[in-house]
């Protein structure tokens, strides 16, 4: 999974909270149809920071974004943008600009008119409108489509028009609702790089709603992982991956072997705890290694530049990644857990590096515990 590798990009935001800029949400609540959609949500986004709201569908991330944009009034709580309380302002009076999931371009206007519309509403002089629109169209490489209609250009281009229409307003806060979900896989990677690049260049405070952890990991300064109307964890992508606070975060971000049982000295024993092991923390070799238990290769799945193995040990079946020489199905070898996370009632207790080479394997491993490997982004219900 590419999530395990940092893109190597430098994160620019400063950790010191700036009181003037950015976005602050405190005590936000929303009940829709008798169901609590958002439950006491608090979030601070620093000026110039790019934050993703990440979660499965129905977790309330889009509702939160719509409340930030002003399309939905919260039942309680406050929303502050650039130091100004905007909770009771309508969408048209907020200093935020939104890029809609379906782009929401006006089909009866040309690309130029779409982008110029927000400036026309602000009654700017005509020359200034033309200049600003052309600047921003240049920024998203769409000057050649200036007089096209939205129906005549491709999905990726429409997306850039939508972005241009938001950027031309020079908003204090840029909101993107699933900006890449309507693009094909290849374009998605390119467009998300573009969005990140433009966001960095303009230093614009940005909130992105997404259900794609890959997308969130690769563009965000920080990610708020949402589940059932609450933020489960709010941290940097690296920290979320290394130290997921809950099993939900651990399974939603990246891939994890989720095994019901207690982790003791490199072995999983029968117990009430839940043990989480990242596939890359499972070491497999054909020769005996210190701390390794005998394991049989059950499945081999090619993943491109690496292979995913299903390894059956006495205590659990573990997924592991190997590159280079790939063992055959049925091969006997040794698997060692280098690092495991222990969760009690879904909450992270320790991130134990025990069971590594320094600790010998338990002489009497417990009976095979039921193992369950969950892919990333699986349904939240079974992750909870």
């Amino acid at each position, binding site marked *: 999974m590419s999530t395990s590798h940092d893109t190597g990009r430098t994160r620019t935001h400063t950790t010191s909270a700036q009181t003037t800029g950015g976005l602050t949400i405190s005590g936000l609540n929303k009940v829709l149809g008798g169901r609590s959609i958002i439950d006491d949500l608090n979030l601070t986004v620093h000026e110039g920071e790019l934050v993703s709201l990440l979660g499965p569908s129905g977790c309330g991330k889009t509702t939160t974004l719509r409340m930030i*944009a*002003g*399309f939905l009034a919260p039942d309680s709580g406050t929303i502050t943008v650039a130091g100004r309380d905007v909770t009771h302002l*309508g*969408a*048209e*009076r*907020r200093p*935020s*600009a*939104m890029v*809609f*999931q*379906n*782009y*929401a*371009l*006006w*089909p*009866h206007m040309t690309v130029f008119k779409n982008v110029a*519309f*927000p400036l026309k*509403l*602000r009654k700017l002089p005509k020359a200034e409108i033309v200049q600003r629109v052309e600047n921003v169209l240049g920024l998203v490489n769409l000057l050649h489509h200036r007089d096209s*209609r*939205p*129906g005549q250009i491709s*999905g990726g281009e*429409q997306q850039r028009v939508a972005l241009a*229409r938001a950027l031309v*307003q020079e908003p204090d806060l840029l909101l993107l609702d699933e900006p890449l979900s309507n693009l094909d896989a290849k374009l998605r990677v390119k467009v998300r790089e573009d969005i990140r690049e433009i966001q960095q260049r303009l230093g614009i405070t940005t909130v992105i709603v997404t259900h794609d952890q890959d997308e969130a990991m690769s563009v965000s300064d920080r990610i708020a992982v949402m589940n059932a109307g609450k933020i489960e964890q709010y941290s940097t992508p690296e920290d979320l991956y290394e130290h997921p606070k809950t099993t939900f975060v651990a399974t939603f971000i990246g891939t994890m072997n989720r095994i019901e049982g207690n982790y003791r000295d490199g072995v999983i024993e029968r117990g009430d705890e839940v043990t989480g092991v990242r596939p890359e923390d499972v070491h497999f070799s054909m020769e005996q290694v210190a701390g390794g238990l005998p394991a049989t290769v059950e499945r081999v799945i090619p993943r491109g530049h690496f292979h995913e193995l299903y390894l059956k040990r006495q205590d659990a079946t573990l997924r592991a990644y190997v590159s280079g020489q790939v063992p055959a199905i049925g091969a006997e070898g040794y698997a060692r857990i280098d690092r495991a996370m222990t969760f009690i009632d879904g909450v992270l207790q320790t991130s134990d590096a025990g069971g590594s080479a320094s600790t010998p394997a338990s002489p009497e491993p417990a009976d095979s515990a039921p193992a369950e490997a969950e892919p990333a982004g699986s349904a939240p219900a079974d992750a909870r």
Partner: protein
Amino acid sequence: MAATTEQIAPETAAVRLGSESIRRSDGRAGAVLGKVLIAIFVVFMVLFILGPLLWLAIHAFVTNWTFPNLWPDGWTMRWWTTVFSDPALGAAVQNSLVISPIVVLCSALICLPAAYAFARYDFFARRTFLVGLFATNAFPKMGLFATLASLFYALNLMNTVVGIVIVQIIGTVVFMTWIPAAAFAGVPRSLEEAARDAGASKIRVFFTISLRMALPGILVAAVMSFLASFDEAQGTYLVGAPQYFTMPTEMYTLVLNYPKQVAAVFSILLSIPSVVLMLAARKHIMGGQLAEGFQIR
């Protein structure tokens, strides 16, 4: 003038039918038979739809043409001069051309906000109201007009233009509400939200986005309302006669008092606005930018 549009549909249906029969037949004879069948079908449809119109058009120019004769007795423009020299006719044309646009305009002012509300808001008894609009079309109109007349007498609306306009609006309400409501509902909410996000007030959003994008539907509704108003005779006769005659009510008089050739001339005159409107609507709605408005990705 529904004939022109209806005519296209059976023809394409015939073509489709024909191509199917061609596919099924496995010889050249079958193909020929298919083509012959199509030809017969098309000729029949054309005769069925255009025949009466042709009969009407011929009658407007003949001196006399009665049943056993295969050919008219003679040709004349007399009926046209009769119609055009009748002073009542000019007044009727004028009344029709003034009253119908007023009816469409009033109907739009009353019904379009209602249509928007039906499309966008969920209020008490919304469905009941929406279906209730059909009530005016559900019963024989004459009964409705008779009761309306007694009310109009009390309100001094009999033999007034206002009375005629009110009576004609009744027949347009369903068109002016249902079709634009569907058109408004077809405007994606996100397009309106995007405009608000860009800084437009609710009223501005309505006029620049909602109304603009629903325009094709509204135009269709306007055309249908215009034709409904233009053709309305029962209520108009009851309320307007003998003070005000519109073209359809004038036609009653003509049919009763003149030979049928005059009625033929008048029918042709009566159909002109319909044909013109249909052609204009077809040009502006079917092709061009308005249709594009509905292609949302």
